[in-house]
C-alpha cells in the first residue's frame, strides 16, 4: 500500500503495528471520558470496538485522528508518535468516517474530488474515482448522480469511498450502519469486509455486538472509558 502524501517527514515503519495506543486518557472538565486505554492494531487487521453508549468509543476514534486532543498517553501510527506530527497530516493518514453520511451539494464525482480541493491534498495523485466506487460496491454510473438523491446506504458508501480516495493507512468507521436500515447496513458491512480482505487496516466502532463479532478479527469492549477486554 502506498501513501498518497507528498513528503511529510512522517516515518512509516512496517515492522510496527498500524496503531499502538498506550495509556490514552481524555478528560472533559471534571469528567474522564477515556481512562488508561491501551491496545494495538496490526496492519491489515479490522478491530471492532464495542460498548454501551457513553463508554468512550467515539471519543477514542476522534483521539486516534486528533479531531480531539488526548489529555494523556501516546498514539503511534506505524511507529510514529502522532502527537509529534501535523494534525492535518494525521487526519489524512488515519481517516475517520462519521456515523451520519455527510455529502456536499453536487455529484458523487464532485464529492469524491472534494478532498483534493484542500491545500494538503492538492498535489496528491487523484485515484480513478470509478474504481474507488467499485471498491465499495457502487458502479461507475454513480459518478454522475446527484449526491443528495442517494439512499442512506449508498451515501455512507460514497463517504467511505471519499475517504479511500486519500488512501489512508488506517480507516476509522464510527457506527457506520447506525443510521441505516437493515438491508443497507448489510451492504455496508459487506463493503467493510471487502476492504479488509484487500488489506485495509480498519477500526470500526459499533454498539452492535453481533456486528462487531462478524466484522472484527478481534473485538475490544469498552465500558466507562476503559477497555474491558479484547477478544
Amino acid at each position, binding site marked *: 500500500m502506498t501513501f498518497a502524501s507528498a513528503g511529510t517527514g512522517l516515518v512509516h515503519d512496517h515492522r510496527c503495528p498500524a496503531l499502538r495506543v498506550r495509556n490514552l486518557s481524555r478528560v472533559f472538565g471534571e469528567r474522564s471520558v477515556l481512562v488508561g486505554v491501551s491496545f494495538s492494531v496490526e496492519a491489515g487487521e479490522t478491530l471492532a470496538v464495542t460498548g454501551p453508549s457513553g463508554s468512550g468509543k467515539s471519543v477514542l476514534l476522534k483521539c486516534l485522528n*486528533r479531531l480531539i*486532543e488526548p489529555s494523556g498517553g501516546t498514539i503511534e501510527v506505524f511507529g510514529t508518535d502522532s502527537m509529534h506530527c501535523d494534525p492535518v497530516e494525521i*487526519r489524512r493518514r488515519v481517516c475517520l468516517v462519521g456515523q451520519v453520511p455527510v455529502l456536499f451539494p453536487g455529484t458523487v464525482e464532485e464529492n469524491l474530488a472534494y478532498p483534493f480541493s484542500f491545500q*494538503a491534498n492538492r498535489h496528491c495523485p487523484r485515484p480513478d474515482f470509478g474504481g474507488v466506487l467499485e471498491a465499495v460496491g457502487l458502479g461507475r454510473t454513480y459518478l454522475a448522480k446527484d449526491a443528495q438523491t442517494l439512499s442512506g446506504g449508498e451515501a455512507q458508501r460514497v463517504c467511505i469511498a471519499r475517504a479511500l480516495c486519500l488512501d489512508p493507512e488506517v480507516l476509522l468507521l464510527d457506527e457506520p450502519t447506525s443510521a441505516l436500515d437493515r438491508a443497507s447496513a448489510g451492504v455496508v458491512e459487506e463493503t467493510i469486509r471487502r476492504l479488509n480482505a484487500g488489506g485495509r487496516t480498519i477500526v470500526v466502532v459499533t454498539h452492535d455486538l453481533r456486528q462487531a463479532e462478524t466484522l472484527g478479527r478481534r473485538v475490544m469492549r469498552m465500558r466507562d472509558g476503559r477497555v474491558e477486554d479484547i477478544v
Partner: protein
Amino acid sequence: MTDPLYDPAVGLVNLGLALLLIGLVLILSWYKQLGLSREIGVATLRAVVQLLLVVLIVVAVFESENLLLIVLVLAAMMGIAAVISAKRAMGIHRPLRITFPAISGSSSAVLLVLILLGVMPVTPEFLIPIGSMTVGASMIACSLALNRFTGEIASNRAKIETALCLGATPEEAVAPFTRESVKASLIPSIDRLKALGVVVLPGAMSGMIVAGVDPIWAAEYQLVIMFLLFSAEAFTSVIATGLARGALPLPYAGMSAAGSPETILQKSA
C-alpha cells in the same frame, strides 16, 4: 447653545407621544408571546437615559474642543459597543477579545483614513457624531456576523468535522461558514446602499438640507458617511469572524498541542 425655538414642555410631550408607539409594540409582543417585552422595555429606557446623558457630555466636549476628550468619548463608545455585541456571540469563550478589537480596530482605521486624507475635519462637531455612527454600524455588523457565525458552526459541525477528516486545515474547513457569516452581516448595509436616495433619505443629509446647506454638498457628505459606514462594517465583520474562528474548539482553531486552553464550545461538545 439653547435654541430659542425649543420649548422643553412641548419636547417632553412629543417624546411621551412617540413612546406610545413603543407601548403598542409591547402590547403586540405580549399578545404574540414574543418574550421581548422586558428586553424592549429595558432597551427603550436605556435609550432615553443614555441619549439625554450623552447630550450633556457632547455639549461639554464640543465646548472644550479638547482632542483627548474626543478620543476618550469615542473609546468609551467602542468599549460599550463591544460589550453589547459580545452578548450576541453565544457560546464563544471570552467574546470581548473578539468584539473589542473588531469594532475599535475597524472604526478607528476608517476614521483615521478619512482624517489623513483630509476628508474629515478634526473637530468635535464632526468626529463625535460621525464617529458614533461608525461605531454603531460596526457594532451591528459585528453582532450580525458573530450571531450567524456561531449558528453556522453549531449547525454544520458534521460538515466541518468531515472536511477536517479529509485533510482540510481548520481555516479551510470553516471558510464556507465564515464567508456566509460575513455576507449575511453585510446584507443590511448593501441594501441600505442600494436604497439610498430611492427609499431612504438619510438623516444627516436631510438635516443639513433643512439647516440650509447646499443639497449637493449635503448629498456628497452623506455619501462620504455611507462609504465610511459600509467600509467599517465590512472590516468589522471580516475581523470578527476571523477572530471568532480562533476561539472555536481545538481542531477548528488549529491549536494542536495537548494541554492547549479549551473553549466553552469544546467543553459542551
